[in-house]
């Protein structure tokens, strides 16, 4: 017995000694080789995970091209503006399954060199998630994938490995406010002509950038170890405007800042009637914070603002000469493009005789004209309403899926919510009971500050019943201006086949921020040109696509009498997701007025028709 343990001790000591004295005798010990192979296998696994989503982008002629990456199974692809500017409004895209699919241009941002195209032919394209580029550190692994020198023969991309050489880098544009690479990621992964538009992945298989640029020597445009990628967080800011089929401009405060004695101060204004001046900024004021980042240098500020689109509600904090600190939210103004669209060249005349252009030449000419049209579209306007509406359907189906895994899960059921209503400083001021039928009807019973009222949507009309029993049919406009109704209809209407159709035709209005996150802003326009806005945040914390209802209001800035409602604290209740907390807010900075917080949320079988019908004779009114 004693001997056995003594034996064990000796063996144990020997094992420890040999593992401590690593590599003696053998170059690489078996244990070390296992670790080395494990790390290699992890990288190979990361490659396998994402390689299917990389696109080799060509025009109609497939001799030259760039790259892109699919970020949604519907076939939406992120790439560079300069790739589509060369390829045209449509072309071919190859992916690792070996097939070539047609693609169409969706929207483009020449300022930041980003564009979105859409591959056609599948609704289940392999796609990759967008990561958080703020988490990227110098020294992190950086994998680039794309089609340098058009080398692929089977449409599988070239994979190159390097590290992040620098972050928050700035590469100036080509003039005319175009092709600026601000707050970009510098890498030494090999990036060559043809890699443009392709993804930069981290080792978790997330897109952290789109490669598009490099520093080159005079000897030619061949990689020398400096490549630049547009950060994924910038891409997120532009996705909604691009999906709206816009030509997107970048945003500016129309104010110039400079480093002065360790501070960043306002030096000049670029225009008359600059909005931020109306908000109190004066020459000499010190810029303290921008979009939540403390500002330490003008370079840093320039970097940050270059990642934002026009109309973005930027959060600016500045200090006045007397020490007063001002905190404002202000929509950025657009930096106009001085666009020189490619001249559509007619085919050269041969030998003096006017030759009839071949069908191929005619088609090329057509495409050139279409591209010229795209580049001269008024910035910020929807270029293709039909495509916009198709993309809108993708957005609302995502939003719908964030509520229920499938509409069948709630079919024939009623959602019952018991809320308490809190004031802005969290004091209880009332209660609320909401019932929502699976076909989008609802009844709200509110008691607030001692006063009770009820609202009903019976599937056709909106009704209000006062405490004294008085019933009023509300116009749709009035309904949109009633925050209690907005609170419910924004959610309930997502359960329908065509969300928000009751308020008019739905489209993607553009990109915006809601609850401090990049969001889609959807808009309905009715026959009277009255609008209703619904915002949906785009990504969850993991960078996965998670388009989710976030805010609703009849006003773009949630101003006016109605304000807006923010939906938050989403929880799962028996298979449906419901925002347990609805904040009633006002203004661009979403100032809290009151909240409805759910005490209980239940999914009940059956729909009681009486619940969703208003009783008694209606009185026509306001």
């Amino acid at each position: 017995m004693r001997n056995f343990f003594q034996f064990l001790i000796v063996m144990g000591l020997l094992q420890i000694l040999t593992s401590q004295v690593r590599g003696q005798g053998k170059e690489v010990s078996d244990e070390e080789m296992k670790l080395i192979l494990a790390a290699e296998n992890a990288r190979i696994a990361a490659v396998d995970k994402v390689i299917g989503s990389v696109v080799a982008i060509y025009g109609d002629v497939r001799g030259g091209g760039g790259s892109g990456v699919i970020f949604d199974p519907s076939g939406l692809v992120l790439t560079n503006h300069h790739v589509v500017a060369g390829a045209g409004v449509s072309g071919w895209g190859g992916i690792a399954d070996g097939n070539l699919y047609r693609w169409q241009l969706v929207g483009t941002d020449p300022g930041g060199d980003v564009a979105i195209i859409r591959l056609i032919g599948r609704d289940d394209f392999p796609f990759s998630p967008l990561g958080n580029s703020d988490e990227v550190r110098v020294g992190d692994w950086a994998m680039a994938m794309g089609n340098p020198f058009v080398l692929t023969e089977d449409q599988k991309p070239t994979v190159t490995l390097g590290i992040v050489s620098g972050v928050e880098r700035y590469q100036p544009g080509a003039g005319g406010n175009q092709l600026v690479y601000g707050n970009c990621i510098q890498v030494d992964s090999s990036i060559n002509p043809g890699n443009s538009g392709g993804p930069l992945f981290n080792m978790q298989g997330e897109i952290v950038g789109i490669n598009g640029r490099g520093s080159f020597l005079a000897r030619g445009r061949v990689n020398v170890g400096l490549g630049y990628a547009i950060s994924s967080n910038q891409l997120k800011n532009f996705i909604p405007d691009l999906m709206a089929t816009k030509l997107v401009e970048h945003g500016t405060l129309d104010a110039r800042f400079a480093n002065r004695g360790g501070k960043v101060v306002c030096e000049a204004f670029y225009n008359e009637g600059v909005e931020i001046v109306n908000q109190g900024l004066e020459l000499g004021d010190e810029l303290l914070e921008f979009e939540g980042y403390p500002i330490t240098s003008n370079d840093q500020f320039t970097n940050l603002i270059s990642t934002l689109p026009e109309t973005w509600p930027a959060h600016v904090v500045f200090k006045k000469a007397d020490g007063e600190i001002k905190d404002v939210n202000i929509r950025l103004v657009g930096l106009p493009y001085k666009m020189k669209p490619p001249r559509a060249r007619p085919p050269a005349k041969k030998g003096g005789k006017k030759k009839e252009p071949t069908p191929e030449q005619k088609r090329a000419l057509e495409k050139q004209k279409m591209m010229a049209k795209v580049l001269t579209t008024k910035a910020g306007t929807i270029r293709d309403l039909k495509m916009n509406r198709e993309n809108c359907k993708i957005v609302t189906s995502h939003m719908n899926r964030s509520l229920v895994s499938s509409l069948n899960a709630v079919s024939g059921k009623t959602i019952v919510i018991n809320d308490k209503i809190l004031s802005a400083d969290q004091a209880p001021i009332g209660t609320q009971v909401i019932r929502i039928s699976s076909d989008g009807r609802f009844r709200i019973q509110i008691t607030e500050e001692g006063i009770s009222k009820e609202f009903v949507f019976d599937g056709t009309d909106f009704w209000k019943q006062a405490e004294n029993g008085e019933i009023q049919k509300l116009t749709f406009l009035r309904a949109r201006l009633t925050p209690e109704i907005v609170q419910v209809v924004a959610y309930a209407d997502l359960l329908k086949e065509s969300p928000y159709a009751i308020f008019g035709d739905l489209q993607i209005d553009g990109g915006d921020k809601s609850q401090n996150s990049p969001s889609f802003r959807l808009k309905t326009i009715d026959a009277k040109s009255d609008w209703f806005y619904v915002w949906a945040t785009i990504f969850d914390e993991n960078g996965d696509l998670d388009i989710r209802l976030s805010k609703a209001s009849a006003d773009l800035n949630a101003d006016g009498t109605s304000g807006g409602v923010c939906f938050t604290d989403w929880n799962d209740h028996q298979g449906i997701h419901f925002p347990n907390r609805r904040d009633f807010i006002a203004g661009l900075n979403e100032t809290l007025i009151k909240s409805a917080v759910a005490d209980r949320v239940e999914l009940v079988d059956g729909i009681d028709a009486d619940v969703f019908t208003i009783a008694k004779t209606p009185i026509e009114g306001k």
Partner: protein
Amino acid sequence: MGHQRVFELIAERIEMMFELSQAGKNKSGVSVGSSLIRFRGPRQDRVAGFPVFKTIALGVLVLGVILSTSLTHLNAQEDQPDIGLSAGILLAPKAFRAATKKVLPCLVTIESFGGVGAVQGKIGGIRRQGEGSTTGIIVSKDGYVITSSFNFIQKPRVITLKTSDGSAYLAKPIANDNTRKLTLLKIQNESKTGEAKPLNLNVAKFMSEEEIRVGQWAVTVGIGFGDVNPAISIGIVSAKNRGFGRAIQTDANVSPANYGGPMIDVQGRIIGVCVPLNPKSSSLASGVEWYDSGIGFAIPLYDQSIIEKLKKGKDINKAYLGIQPKPAKLDGSGVKVVTVVKTSPAEKAGLKKDDEIVKLGKYIVQDVNQFGTLVGRFDSDSKTKITYLRGGKPMTSELAFTVPPKVTPTRPNPGSPKLSPAKKEDKGKKAQPKKSNAENENGK
């Protein structure tokens, strides 16, 4: 009971250390020992030999140590991307060195003498092409060596090679694989009577197709920097099936310093032979301009029939079809025949103008560019089937490729501007369809 003896030896050693340290101390130094005695409890020191209690405690501890060290390693093996993996990266250089050491015995250093005068014009490379030592890989026990054709651009009159054990031999080129830019050499070890002297050679083994994976480490090894020791460069396998399906692409450095040398994996297995390659150009030295741009190629040799063909003295050449194609549809897809060259393989197969080619061998035809890469996958003596539509009706014919009517010069002409990398760019631009999207001034 050897272990018991070892144990006692260790115990004695520690005892002696303890005694020595005691010798230098005064009475107060014994306090350490006293506290240990207290810890041990009463009377236990009275038991002869090693007490049972302590033995069990020690044994349990040792078991715990063994288990915990084994488990840490087990964890590292599982596919959890973020755990324990930095260690695997930090340790990788050890594997790079071990892998290089493992492959050295099957490498040879090649020296070339004489030949056509130095080619004018510039070519990428630390030396002018073919000058200085280059690398080769032994592929058979009877002295066949595979290397890059680039090393013999000057058509040297004399080739010697030195194996890893220092033996020097004469060698002569046997045949070229012009599709892979490889040259097979044979060691001339015939004695004066014509008998082959026995050679003591280490034959290289090449990895199979499945073993090569995109994302794995790739180490390129070569002696072309004029040093006796090989230089190594690290990258990953960037893609398979490049260069008309014949090459593995890497972002490790592939340059005249290692053409003909091996690209190996982290365990020392050979992925392929490093060669200069630019699939868009057929000149022998094309691809050299990418020497450190992160685009390099190595030829895998899991298909041993390539070596066997070359051993017979037969060159391997690119397949020639003999048609001028154009897109079949307005959107750029498909392939239609514009002209058929007389007496070409295409004519012999019965192809005519306006035929739409849909299948070549087992490959489906997608467009003109892809069709070019499909034809490139075949050799000049390959036979296959070609399927095409004539007036909408599908037809299939036997197809026998040949060499192109004019043999492409394997040596660039002196004074040709083709060789300058800077000028090559321009040539490249003209040769290819407009790459305006890739060549934008400020983008890629």
